[in-house]
C-alpha cells in the first residue's frame, strides 16, 4: 500500500478528531440544550412527583416505557449488525461497524435510564440491584423487570467491550499522532498496543469470540424486553410471538438509525470516499428485508387477534384499527411498510437520499409501534368500566426530547474523540482487495498504526 494513500486515509478518518468545525459546535450546542431541557423536566418530576406526567389509571405506562423499548430497539443497530456481518465475513461492513457499535452503546445507555426515570420513587432505584443488606431483602427474580436489569447490563457490558476491542489499534494510532493530555488519555486507553503479531492474533480472536457471544445476548435482551409485556396477562400483550417480533422490530429500527447516522457523518465529516452508496444500498436491502419481516409479524399478530375474536383482545384491536388510536396505527403501517418497502425495493430509489428518507420513516414508525403496543392495551382493561385514555404532558415530551438530544450529544463527543470509521479495518479491507485471499500479513496494518 502506498504511503500517500495511507496518510490520506489517516487524515480523512481522523479529521473528525483533529478538527472542530462550526457544524459540530452547533450540533453540540443544540443537543446540549435539548439535554438540559430533559434534565430540567426530570428534576421537576423528581421534585413534584410523577403526577406531572400524563399517566393515569389505567394507563400507568406510556411515553416512559415507549422510549425505553424504542431506545433498546435502536441499540440493536449496531452490535448485532456488525457482529452478524463480521461473523459472516461480509467485506463491505468495514466502514460501517464502529458507527453501528457506537449507536448500540449510547442507545443502551439512554434506554437503560428510562426504567429509572419512570419510577414513582427514582431515588430508590438501587433496590432493583441485588446486594446483601441487613434487612434481608432481595429483588424479585420472578419479575421481568429484574430480568431486564440483568439483560441490559450484560448487553451494555458486552457492547462496550465489543466497541472497545476493535478500537484499540486506532487508539494506538491516535496515541502516536497526538500530543499532550490527549496523548495521555489515548495511551491509557490503547492499553499498550504495539501491533505485535501476538497482539493482532489475540485481538482477532477476542473480536471473533465477542462477535459470536454478542449475537445471542442481543437477541435475548429484546426478547426479555418484550417479555415485560408478554408475561403479563393483558389483552394483546400476552402473545408468544412478542420475542421475535420485538427483536425483528429492534433490528429494523436499529438499521434505520444506522443509515441516518451514517448519512449525517458522511455529510458532516466528508466521508464520501469511505461511506459509499454501496453501503447505503446494502443496508437499504437489509432494511427492506426487515421491513418485510416486520410486516409479516405485524400481520400475523393482528390477524390472529382478529380471527380469535376474544372480546377483550378485540376491544384493544378495534381501538387501534378503527378507534381513537387508528390514525397512529395507520401512520405506523405507512411509516414501517407502505412507504419504505417500495422505496427500498426499487433500485433507482435505493440511493443515499432514498434510504435516509425510508429510515426516517422507519424510526418514527417504530416509535409509534412501541407506543401502540403499550397504551391501547392499558387504556382498555378487562373491566370496561375502567377504560381510559392518555395524553402526554410537556414534561414527558421534554424528557423524550432530552433523550434524543443526549444521544446526539454522546455521539458527537464520541466522534470528537475516536475515529468513527475503523481505520485499521478499512485498511484491512483495502489490503484484502489488492491481495486476494485472507489477509494474514499483518505488516500492512502495522504500517497503518503508524511507525
Amino acid at each position, binding site marked *: 500500500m502506498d504511503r500517500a494513500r495511507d496518510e490520506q486515509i489517516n487524515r480523512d478518518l481522523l479529521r473528525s478528531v483533529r478538527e472542530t468545525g462550526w457544524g459540530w459546535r452547533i450540533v453540540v450546542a443544540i443537543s446540549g440544550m435539548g439535554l438540559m431541557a430533559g434534565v430540567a423536566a426530570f428534576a421537576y418530576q423528581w421534585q413534584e412527583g410523577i403526577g406531572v406526567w400524563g*399517566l393515569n389509571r389505567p394507563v400507568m405506562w406510556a411515553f416512559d416505557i415507549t422510549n425505553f423499548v424504542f431506545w433498546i430497539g435502536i441499540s440493536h443497530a449496531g452490535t448485532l449488525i456488525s457482529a452478524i456481518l463480521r461473523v459472516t465475513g461480509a467485506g463491505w461492513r468495514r466502514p460501517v461497524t464502529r458507527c453501528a457499535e457506537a449507536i448500540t452503546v449510547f442507545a443502551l445507555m439512554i434506554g437503560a435510564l428510562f426504567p429509572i426515570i419512570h419510577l414513582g420513587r427514582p431515588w430508590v432505584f438501587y433496590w432493583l440491584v441485588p446486594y446483601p443488606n441487613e434487612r434481608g431483602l432481595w429483588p424479585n427474580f420472578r419479575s421481568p423487570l429484574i430480568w431486564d436489569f440483568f439483560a441490559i447490563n450484560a448487553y451494555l457490558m458486552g457492547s462496550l467491550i465489543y466497541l472497545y476491542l476493535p478500537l484499540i489499534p486506532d487508539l494506538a494510532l491516535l496515541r502516536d499522532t497526538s500530543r499532550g493530555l490527549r496523548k495521555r488519555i489515548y495511551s491509557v486507553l490503547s492499553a499498550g498496543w504495539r501491533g505485535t503479531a501476538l497482539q493482532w492474533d489475540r485481538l482477532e480472536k477476542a473480536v471473533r469470540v465477542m462477535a459470536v457471544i454478542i449475537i445471542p445476548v442481543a437477541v435475548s435482551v429484546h426478547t426479555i424486553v418484550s417479555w415485560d409485556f408478554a408475561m403479563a396477562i393483558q389483552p394483546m400483550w400476552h402473545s408468544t410471538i412478542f420475542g421475535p417480533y420485538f427483536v425483528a422490530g429492534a433490528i429494523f429500527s436499529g438499521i434505520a438509525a444506522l443509515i441516518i447516522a451514517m448519512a449525517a457523518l458522511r455529510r458532516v465529516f466528508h466521508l464520501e470516499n469511505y461511506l459509499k452508496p454501496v453501503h447505503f444500498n446494502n443496508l437499504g436491502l437489509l432494511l427492506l428485508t426487515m421491513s418485510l419481516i416486520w410486516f409479516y409479524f405485524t400481520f400475523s399478530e393482528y390477524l390472529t387477534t382478529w380471527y380469535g375474536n376474544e372480546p377483550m383482545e378485540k376491544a384493544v384491536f378495534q381501538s387501534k384499527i378503527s378507534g381513537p388510536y387508528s390514525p397512529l396505527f395507520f401512520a405506523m403501517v405507512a411509516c414501517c411498510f407502505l412507504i419504505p418497502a417500495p422505496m427500498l425495493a426499487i433500485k433507482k430509489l435505493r440511493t443515499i437520499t432514498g434510504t435516509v428518507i425510508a429510515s426516517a420513516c422507519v424510526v418514527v414508525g417504530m416509535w409509534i409501534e412501541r407506543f401502540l403496543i403499550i397504551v391501547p392495551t392499558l387504556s382498555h382493561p378487562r373491566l370496561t368500566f375502567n377504560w381510559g385514555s392518555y395524553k402526554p404532558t410537556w414534561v414527558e415530551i421534554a424528557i423524550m426530547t432530552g433523550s434524543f438530544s443526549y444521544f446526539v450529544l454522546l455521539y458527537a463527543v464520541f466522534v470528537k474523540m475516536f475515529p468513527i470509521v475503523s481505520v485499521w479495518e478499512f485498511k484491512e479491507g483495502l489490503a484484502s482487495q489488492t491481495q486476494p485471499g485472507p489477509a494474514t500479513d499483518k505488516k500492512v496494518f502495522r504500517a497503518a498504526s503508524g511507525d
Partner: protein
Amino acid sequence: MMNETEKTQKPQWAMAIDLDRCTGCEACVVACRIENNIAVVGPEESARDRSMNWIRIERYMEGEFPDVRVRFRPVLCQHCQEAPCEPVCPVYATYHTEEGLNAQVYNRCVGTRYCANNCPYSVRFFNFFDPQWPAPLEKSLNPEVSIRTRGVMEKCTFCIQRIRKGEEKARDEDRAVRDGDVIPACVGSCPTKAMYFGNIADSNSEVARLARSNRAERLMEDLGTEPRVIYLRKRDQA
C-alpha cells in the same frame, strides 16, 4: 380450648358479596376512604382519572329506553391466590401472605406500576402526588393505617389493621378466629348487609358457606387468578 391445628393454621380471609342485595349506594366507598386514609385528589386530578377508590361500584347500563338494565358490582382487590400483580413486582413490594392476602408494602414500593398494569381488575391505585390534608383534616386520619407518599402503589388490604385486631382478640380468648371478629370497614357499613367477611378455611364460616352456594362466582375466574372475593349472582327471575 381449641385444638393445636386450629391454633396454628392461619386463617384464610375471604369476602362474599351478594349482588342481589347490593344496591350500589356507595356507603362502602366512603367507609373505606375514611378508614384507610385514602386521599381525596381533588377535581383537577380527578379529571385526569387519578381519583382513588379502593372499592368502587362498577355500573353497567345496557339496553335502550325504556328497556334499560343497570347492574352494579362492587370491585375491590380480589386478593387473588394466583395474583398476576405479585410475580411482576421487582422488589417484592407486593407479595402473598400466609393468610391469603395480597399485601402491598408501601415503603418497599419503588413505583414501577407494573403490578397495576398486570392487574386484570384495575384495583391498584398510584399516588401520583403526595396526598393533601388541609389542616385540620389530618386529625381525622386513622392512626392505624399508613399515610402513603407519592410514588407508591396502594390498594385494598381487606382492612389489615382490623384483621390484626380481630386475630389479637381471638388469641386473647385462646380460640380460633370466628365470624364477627374481623369486620372490614366496607362490610360494616353496608346498608343492605350484602357483604360478608371471614375465614374461608373454616368450613362453618359464613363466607365458606356462601362460597359453596350455587350462586357463587368469582370475577374473571377463567384467568385462573383464584380470587378471594366471591360474588353471589343476582337471583333475577329473568
